């Protein structure tokens, strides 16, 4: 069955009723309700995941959405969304804001309004540490495992025209294929790849990043069309945490020096990223 077709249909459905839900008074409505309904992912650690101890959603995006709610003087309410349905959840008004790793794309920007970026992560090729592959060009002619429907597939094909891309249903399957040698490489978001590396143990073969990133993909908050004042407020909020250092603190906690990922921040909170469209 063609899931993408359903998604397109669902998004269309959402767009069809946009006029009824997308009131220009969104910011006021949220303030009146006193609640900001955040659509978040719960399966993308460390950005948004289910904490094993508290059994509650936790992570970078979840904390960030809470900060934004506080900024506009309301309480956050977390609504888990799935990558397949998140756009429709927003356009149908089930959530007020998406803080769910929604990467910029022209198509998405036609259906929702993006704020400036709050995250940008490199996507890089990952190989087994024991493999002789040193640089990206060594992958030419090799099999590469990716997740079905991912924007990474055309990019990989463009970068490595001779490579054979195998697409898997889930990233777990693509990970297993790499472990079993069925593919020579896969592509991981930096934080995801680091987590895999960290969890490598006796049964898991160690992984290695290739230096040259395939791309850097930024994400921002997404809002329903037709409320520029809400987008503007979000941009102001992001700029404010950039300035105050709260943004850096948040980054350090989940991704940077205070986390076990030790990543370096290469983006600026709230900076319009219109030139970064991945496609």
């Amino acid at each position, binding site marked *: 069955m063609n899931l993408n077709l359903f998604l397109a249909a669902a998004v269309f459905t959402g767009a069809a009723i946009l006029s009824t839900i997308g009131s220009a008074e969104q910011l006021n409505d949220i303030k009146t309700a006193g609640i900001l309904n955040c659509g978040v992912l719960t*399966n993308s650690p460390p950005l948004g*995941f*289910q904490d*094993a101890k508290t059994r*509650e959603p936790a992570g970078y995006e979840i904390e960030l959405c809470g900060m934004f709610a506080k900024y506009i003087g309301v309480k956050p309410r977390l609504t888990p969304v*799935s990558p397949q*349905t998140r756009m429709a959840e927003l356009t149908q008004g089930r959530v007020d804001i998406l803080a769910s790793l929604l990467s910029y794309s022209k198509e998405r920007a036609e259906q929702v309004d993006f704020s400036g970026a709050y995250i940008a992560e490199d996507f890089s090729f990952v190989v087994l540490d024991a493999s002789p592959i040193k640089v990206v060009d060594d992958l030419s002619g090799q099999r590469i495992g990716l997740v079905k429907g991912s924007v990474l597939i055309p990019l990989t094909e463009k970068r490595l025209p001779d490579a054979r891309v195998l697409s898997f249903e889930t990233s777990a399957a693509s*990970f297993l294929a790499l472990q079993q040698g069925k593919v020579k490489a896969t592509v991981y978001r930096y934080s995801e790849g680091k987590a*895999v590396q960290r969890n490598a143990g006796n049964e898991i073969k160690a992984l290695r990043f290739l230096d040259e990133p395939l791309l850097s993909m930024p994400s921002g908050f997404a809002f329903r069309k037709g409320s520029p004042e809400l987008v503007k407020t979000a941009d102001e909020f992001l700029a404010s945490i950039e300035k105050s250092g709260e943004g850096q603190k948040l980054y350090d906690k989940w991704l940077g020096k205070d986390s076990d990922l030790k990543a370096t921040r290469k983006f600026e909170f709230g900076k319009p990223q219109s030139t970064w469209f991945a496609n």
Partner: protein
Amino acid sequence: MLEIIREYGLMLLIGEYPHGKLGGLALTLIISIVSLAVTFPCAILIALARTGQSRPLKAIASGFVHSVRAIPLLMLIFWAYFALPMAIGFPIDATYTLIIAIVVYQAAYLGEIIAAGIQGLPNGQVEAAKALGLGYVPTTFRVILPQAIFNVIPGIVNQLTTIIKESSLGSIIAVSELSYVMLQVNSNEVTKPLQIFGILAATYFILCFALSQATNWLERRIANRRTGRVLVEVIA
């Protein structure tokens, strides 16, 4: 495998409960049981409409069954989640959406199974009930259904286990049932998909196996009771 259960056990059992929504295995069980409980009477109504005398009812039921059979459940869930709120004007909780979609879907299938059971009964059963002067309700509920349902128990069990397994489709609309929580665990652990999905598969196996065993037991019990009703009761 044991570490996963140790670390995530409570999350797998009850999700975020009590400080958040109930999830995990408990939610899977609730969704399954509620779906079963609502599907069954709906399926009986569909079966009665399908096998009954009223032409309009027959046409409606058959139209319903044929359209549902032509749609994948995933799509039905999707549309129930996004289109139903438009129709009724307010959003429905994802868990209820899932249950509604499963009930609509399975009522069609289970209805056909029960209808087959009704059609499989000898015509003389209905004639005998009629000849005794029994009306529609006692004929249906005392004569036809007890026999028809008993005769198609294997098919019914099949659908019931399907319902349990289909509750896993809730993960697409972020219903935090067992599969969804397992996906969360998998994304936290990253490197143990085999173990994690092994636990998931084992859990569904145990649930479905237990259900079919329970039904077998029930089937035997009914059969025994039908053969060996205690004499004392009659004499007393």
